[in-house]
């Protein structure tokens, strides 16, 4: 079947499955009192969480339907399976918080699923260098990439609609890059991911009616890692996800290592009358939201829009790096 038809089918199936799962899961979360406080609102409303399984199950169900249509169905299923494992780890964390050190370690597990597919080529495309030959170091790097991507995306899930909107901004400019690599499975997975995230975004945007939880953010991070590994575009995804990585890295370094969110003594930002601003305390950690609000307080939707625009900027920067600075 022609690639354009498969991509169109992927976007329709993703939207449809995601909408169905959202409609099934949200009432159940409300009836079972799975609700979390929205701490950035003055009245602190209680919102259903975690809705992540609606997104990840829609992705897996759509992948099963689409697998027979692509060249390498095992690789496509591998991306879905590894993302599904990450979503399960996230769900475990949502129900009973995992330790700050055990979570990154557990998030290397999905990398083994990808290795088992046998579809990965340890020759990533790098800016300036072209195709590298990393036959030995590629595999530990792949495990590290899974945990870095998953945790970075997780740390970006801080404000209403910020995670889906910034993922849209960072990854849509990478579609021509993936097209150039000729890995149809990666393209189908990316389109599928963007489609299943859309119904979630409509419900998570300001003012949020649902929260995804770690089962959503870790799933998205792992899917992005899987897509980049299967298309050898790891470096370009890293550049596109720079706002996520900068935020996560700065936060980890400024708190002095891996610390559970609840264990951070000083918060990076303070909220007053619905306005968010960087914590004026000199020892408070640094994150992307703290950087953006370092000079003046801002409203939550304004910060989300700025992060999305920065993500779009890094996505375009990544695309330009591929076409202008990468030997092929």
């Amino acid at each position, binding site marked *: 079947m022609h690639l354009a038809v498969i991509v169109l089918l992927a976007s329709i199936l993703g939207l449809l499955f995601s909408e169905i799962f959202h409609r099934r899961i949200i009432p159940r979360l409300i009836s079972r009192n799975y609700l979390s406080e929205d701490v950035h609102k003055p009245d602190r409303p209680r919102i259903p969480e975690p809705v992540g399984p609606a997104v990840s199950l829609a992705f897996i169900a759509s992948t099963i339907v689409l697998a027979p249509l692509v060249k390498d169905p095992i690789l496509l299923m591998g991306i879905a399976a590894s993302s599904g494992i990450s979503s399960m780890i996230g769900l475990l964390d949502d129900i009973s918080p995992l330790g700050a050190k055990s979570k990154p370690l557990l998030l290397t597990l999905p990398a083994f699923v990808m290795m088992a597919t046998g579809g990965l080529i340890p020759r990533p495309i790098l800016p300036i260098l072209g195709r590298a030959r990393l036959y030995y170091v590629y595999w530990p790097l792949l495990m590290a990439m899974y945990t870095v991507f998953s945790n970075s995306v997780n740390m970006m899930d801080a404000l209403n609609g910020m995670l889906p909107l910034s993922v849209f901004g960072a990854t849509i400019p990478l579609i021509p890059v993936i097209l150039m690599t000729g890995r149809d499975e990666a393209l189908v997975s990316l389109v599928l991911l963007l489609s299943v995230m859309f119904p979630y975004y409509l419900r998570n945007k300001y003012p949020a009616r649902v929260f995804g939880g770690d089962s959503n953010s870790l799933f998205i991070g792992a899917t992005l890692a899987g897509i980049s590994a299967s298309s050898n575009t790891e470096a370009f995804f890293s550049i596109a996800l720079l706002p996520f990585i900068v935020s996560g890295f700065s936060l980890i370094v400024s708190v002095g290592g891996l610390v559970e969110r609840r264990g951070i003594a000083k918060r990076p930002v303070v909220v007053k009358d619905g306005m968010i601003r960087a914590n004026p305390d000199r020892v408070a950690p640094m994150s992307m939201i703290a*950087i*953006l609000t*370092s000079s003046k307080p801002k409203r939550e939707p304004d910060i989300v829009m700025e992060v999305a625009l920065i993500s779009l900027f890094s996505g375009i920067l990544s695309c330009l790096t591929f076409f202008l600075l990468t030997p092929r």
Partner: protein
Amino acid sequence: MDRGLILAIFSIISGWALILLSLLVIKVLILSTREGSFVYSLIEVGMGFLTLISFLFIWYRLLRYLFLRTKVGDSGPGGT
């Protein structure tokens, strides 16, 4: 456009430049060492990582310094 947004854009552009600079250093290393030996390949990878880590350290210190200056208006010792 406020100073916070400018600093955020700076963090992205400098992060991108850091990646490219590290890759450029690795390219120079590859061109200047003998090819084919496993030991040499290992040294190349090790030096590549060391370069990245040292650049990352400098980059983080600079970003943190600028962030604190923007946040608390700290102009450093002797500032006005």
